[in-house]
């Protein structure tokens, strides 16, 4: 009798798996990403790109991260965005956050400040200090950072249309505290194209707004070596309803447009590109988001190196801040938002973010309470210190699925680039409402899926029971508006009116002619000229902006 022979185990084959898979019924749902991209049941080795497209961290094309050591060298910066009431209240919140282990500051301005209106402007009524801090003059800026060493902490400021004015206030406030401009570290958002695309806080028509931005980039490149002059932001594009691919494509195209402009103005790409940074959303579709960040790094590196000929490897690095998706938060069963935010934040970290803001669970209801902010910050600390995900670099690198999604995202971005180029570039595309329309369509489609329950939002269109608890919310005291208006009027009464007039005349002269607007803006800041006065003076020369909305 023959010795017992073991039948060889059948070699696993893709066909075999496919057969077995097809024999099993699928659930009756659409297997697509949040952005509507179809996802296959399985990804395999065949989906991997060539090894050099994945590369190594800290090396071109940086798919796996911008630094060789990533979080083993330094954790992501925990940077919670804060601002409400007057500069005094926000200063208190800043100190609270620093005391609780936050490592950088991020300033939210109120709507009047974002739109270039003083707190006593008729349009500011009811909006002063509501969604951010009110800053009217350099005095407010100084109060905002009272007792905080600006040479030590890095500060991010989320303001765009009037960014150059706020930067002038910041430089002068620091100067008064004894910190020179070249010691200031931080970021000002100043991404004006995405304002016309998505966030919709503008002061001037697109062309002069681009010039003002160019002036600021040029000036800060020369005077503020530690400063990130523009934070090219997809966050608001995504919040306005864009898909992940649209966020990626429009944001990078905005960034490439700023690079193009700076090069056209005669700057050497390697002098300013290392100081550009990015700001992305982290939505709830976990892998899609991770793929988006990885694709973004690769595209940016390639474009800067190949298209713009940047030689300094630092110019190729796409460093970015991430904020979890405000739009994913629900007003129903708000505690569930803690879970959503944790998952989104984890995607940001696995995507290699340099800094992170986690939303508070009550933000679909109002500005966050202190307790909600603390939980949000603790979420980041749990990810950083408990989960172990920071032990190794790009733990998802080489994942069949993640690499395939990364490639797909990249291809989609290039398709959008081509369409935008056909329209004559991003400025032209924005003037023709192209990205605005794409976003409106995507957002309407997603809403339809939610309304028809093809997409489930827990607590909103499924599992809706158990929402009876009252969530405490932060109320902004309406007295703060009166306090801010009084303080602005106090500054107006104290300052030298003739000096203010002189700075405004000079601003208008430079705005109408050539020359860099930053020096006259800094003089205006020193003379206590208010933001609204500066904006109105510039509008006298440039006009204002009205959009033709598309829906």
């Amino acid at each position, binding site marked *: 009798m023959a010795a017992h022979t073991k039948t060889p185990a059948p070699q696993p084959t893709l066909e075999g798996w496919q057969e077995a898979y097809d024999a099993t019924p699928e659930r009756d749902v659409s297997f697509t990403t949040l952005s509507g991209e179809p996802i296959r049941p399985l990804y395999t080795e065949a989906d991997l790109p060539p090894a050099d497209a994945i590369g190594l961290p800290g090396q071109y094309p940086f798919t796996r991260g911008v630094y060789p050591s990533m979080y083993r060298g330094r954790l992501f910066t925990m940077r919670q965005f804060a601002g409400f009431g007057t500069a005094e209240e926000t200063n208190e919140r800043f100190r609270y956050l620093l005391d609780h282990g936050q490592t950088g500051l991020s300033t939210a301005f109120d709507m009047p400040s974002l739109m270039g209106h003083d707190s006593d402007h008729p349009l500011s009524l009811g909006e002063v200090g509501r969604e951010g801090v009110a800053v009217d003059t350099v005095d407010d800026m100084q109060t905002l950072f009272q007792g905080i060493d600006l040479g030590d902490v890095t500060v991010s400021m989320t303001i765009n249309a009037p960014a150059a004015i706020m930067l002038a206030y910041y430089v002068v406030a620091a100067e008064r505290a004894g910190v020179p401009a070249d010691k200031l570290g931080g970021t000002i958002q100043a991404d004006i194209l995405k304002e016309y695309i998505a966030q919709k806080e503008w002061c001037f028509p697109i062309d002069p707004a681009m010039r003002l931005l160019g002036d600021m980039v040029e000036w800060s490149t020369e005077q503020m070596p530690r400063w990130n002059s523009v934070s090219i932001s997809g966050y608001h594009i995504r919040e306005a309803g864009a898909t992940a691919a649209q966020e990626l494509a429009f944001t990078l195209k905005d960034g490439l447009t700023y690079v193009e402009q700076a090069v056209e103005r005669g700057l050497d790409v390697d002098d300013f590109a290392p100081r550009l940074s990015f700001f992305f959303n982290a939505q709830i579709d976990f892998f899609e988001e991770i793929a988006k960040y990885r694709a973004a790094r690769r595209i940016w590196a390639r474009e800067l190196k190949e298209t713009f000929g940047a030689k300094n490897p630092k110019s190729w690095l796409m460093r970015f801040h991430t904020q979890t998706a405000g739009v994913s938060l629900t007003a129903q069963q708000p505690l569930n938002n803690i879970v959503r935010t944790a998952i989104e934040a984890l995607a940001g970290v696995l995507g290699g973010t340099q800094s992170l803001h986690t939303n508070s669970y009550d933000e679909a209801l109002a500005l966050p309470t202190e307790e909600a902010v603390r939980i949000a910050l603790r979420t980041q600390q749990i990810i950083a210190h408990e989960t172990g995900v920071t032990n190794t670099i790009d733990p998802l690198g080489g994942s069949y699925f993640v690499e395939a999604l990364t490639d797909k995202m990249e291809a989609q971005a290039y398709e959008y680039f081509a369409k935008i180029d056909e329209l004559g570039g991003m400025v032209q595309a924005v003037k023709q409402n192209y990205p605005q329309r794409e976003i409106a369509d995507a957002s309407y489609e997603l809403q339809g899926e939610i309304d028809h329950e093809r997409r489930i939002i827990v607590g909103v269109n499924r599992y809706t029971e158990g929402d009876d608890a009252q969530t405490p919310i932060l109320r902004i005291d309406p007295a703060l508006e009166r306090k801010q208006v009084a303080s602005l009027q106090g500054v107006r009464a104290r300052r030298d009116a003739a000096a203010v007039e002189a700075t405004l005349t000079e601003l208008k002269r430079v705005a109408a002619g050539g020359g860099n607007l930053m020096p006259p803006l800094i003089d205006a800041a020193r003379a206590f000229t208010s933001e609204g006065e500066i904006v109105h003076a510039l509008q006298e020369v440039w006009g204002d902006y009205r959009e033709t*909305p598309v829906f």
Partner: protein
Amino acid sequence: MSKKIRVVVAKPGLDGHDRGAKIIARALRDAGMEVIYTGLHQTPEQIVETVIQEDADAVGLSILSGAHMTLVPRIVELLKAQDIDDVLVTVGGTIPADDIPELKELGVAEVFTPGAPTQDIVEFMRANASTRRN
């Protein structure tokens, strides 16, 4: 054939959060209503002016800036001052539950908060705006 409902979708205040307003505008349009979207950053005066000029049956105010307790009373007051009492006023946005009774007291017919299904808003408009005037 019945007259189409005319709705002004308005964005008072300074915030730029227009995702909701645009979705609602489009949904109402797709439901067969005539929709006039004001665009962003409108003053209460501009909104009331649009309501009058467009001979609207309803106005939907979208507010996410937290300024609703300043802006809505002002708009309602301006409508009253023009003797307009047959225009349905609705509000949508991040409106805390505590503020809703006061807004309704002022004459706001309904407040839609985040997560409200678009279809509910369409149906509400259809049921209430059309029956008001004939």
